[in-house]
């Protein structure tokens, strides 16, 4: 494949044009993601596949070997395992918060201690999720506490 890079002046807006046979090809999607600087994950809901940006994900959860992606008000099913989500989220605001969940730090409204020796994180949509003591140190490090 031919790759052309053209240097332009600061007065011009940067642009990426992809000339391809199939706009739906996976490599085109990859270029799109790289250009937008957004990592995404695919989620199924009512037989429809949707590409979700990591920034809109509230948390990932694995229940009975099935993976789910939770956003503000919707739940999607995904094919990835928890460790694959972990790899995908490396370096982002998402962190492992319990044995079965990866949580987006930016969606946490506040945390409070739970009598069960763990923490409860109240999210910006009002949902409450458990943060284990084991993983709270990760959250503290990410926040710089």
């Amino acid at each position, binding site marked *: 494949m031919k790759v052309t890079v053209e240097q332009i002046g600061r007065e011009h807006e940067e642009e990426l044009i992809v000339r391809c046979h199939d706009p739906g090809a996976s490599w085109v999607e990859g270029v799109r993601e790289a250009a937008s600087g957004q990592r995404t994950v695919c989620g199924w809901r009512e037989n429809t596949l949707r590409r979700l940006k990591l920034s809109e994900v509230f948390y990932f959860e694995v229940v009975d070997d099935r993976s789910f992606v939770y956003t503000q008000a919707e739940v999607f099913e995904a094919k990835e395992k928890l460790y694959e989500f972990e790899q995908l989220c490396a370096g982002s605001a998402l962190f492992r918060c*319990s*044995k*079965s*969940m990866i949580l987006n730090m930016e969606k*946490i*409204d*506040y*945390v*409070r*201690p*739970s*009598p*069960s*020796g*763990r*923490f409860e994180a109240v999210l910006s949509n009002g949902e409450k999720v*458990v943060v*284990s*003591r084991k993983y*709270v140190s990760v*959250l*503290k490090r990410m*926040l*710089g*506490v």
Partner: protein
Amino acid sequence: MTVYGIIMLCTFFMCLLFNPASELPVVTFFGRIMVFTLIGLLSLAVYYSKEELTVKSWWIRTVLHLLLLEAVLLPLAHHWGFWKSGPDAWIYAGFILLAKVLLHLVEYGINAKTASQINEKIRKNRLEKRA
């Protein structure tokens, strides 16, 4: 260390209440306290689970843990002469319960402090983003 400290505290108050004039053989006494601590820590395996515990299952395991501690520590303490008569046994059992409650309260206090630090940082980050 928290378990060890709580056992030491309970022992101190028990001696203060029931036998203030007692003299302790240091090596034997500390050795026995260490055994108690070790049992206390090993018994925490009751909480082990591959899945994240629900609040209900946490409470069930907490009650089981208390029963296990009572079942193991009471006969051992009797064997070492920490209690002799029936009423003493009830008081000793009460101290084990108190030690467990104290441990959870200490844990809750530490968690409350951590939560407050995290919330403060979240609040600051939010203010910085708005500014």
